[in-house]
């Protein structure tokens, strides 16, 4: 299974996100120490879930890191996380319009 698919499955199961966007940025890190041929080492995850309500930024990112602990200890060298609540995602969308 592709790493991105595993990330999607685990986050979906644990956080029931209303939106989940996973980007493999590995190519941007070509030549860098953590880069592997074939990619799947650097990811950006944008996730919208009610599970983040009442959490500060650190707590939200810790939730994601905990769910993906195995991946972070293994193939994933870098993981950027943008964790929003549905209300925050809506107000961000409005600002961008």
């Amino acid at each position, binding site marked *: 299974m592709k790493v991105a698919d595993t990330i999607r499955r685990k986050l979906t199961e644990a956080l029931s996100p209303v939106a989940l966007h996973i980007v493999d940025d590995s190519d941007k890190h070509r030549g860098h*120490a953590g880069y592997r041929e074939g990619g799947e080492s650097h990811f950006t995850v944008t996730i919208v879930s009610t599970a983040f309500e009442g959490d500060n*930024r*650190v707590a939200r*990112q810790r939730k994601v890191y905990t769910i993906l*602990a195995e991946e*972070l200890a293994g193939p994933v060298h870098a993981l*950027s*996380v*943008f964790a929003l609540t549905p209300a925050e995602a809506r107000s961000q969308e409005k600002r961008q319009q």
Partner: protein
Amino acid sequence: MTNPVFERIQKDIDENEVVLFMKGTPQFPQCGFSSAVAQILDYFQVPYKGVDVLQDPSLREGIKEFSQWPTIPQLYVKGEFIGGCDIVREMAESGELTQLFDEKGIQYAA
């Protein structure tokens, strides 16, 4: 809590108002994420101590356990863990970072 490296980390964050645990040094960052946070601190002209985790494998692993945070860089302000690259970047963009500096009494260039 018997990891000997914890004592050293605690000392660093006790003795320095702003500490960035990073890969490389502020002058020569060895990773884009560490570099991004160093640049943000430089932009606000905040004096900080950069601690290069690549110099010591026990520190590189120890800081992850200490902060319960599996990635580097890690920013501490007045002993409080603030976050990694994504969080610091978002806070810088939203104005929360200078708000934090104000609350903690850290001098910065507006």
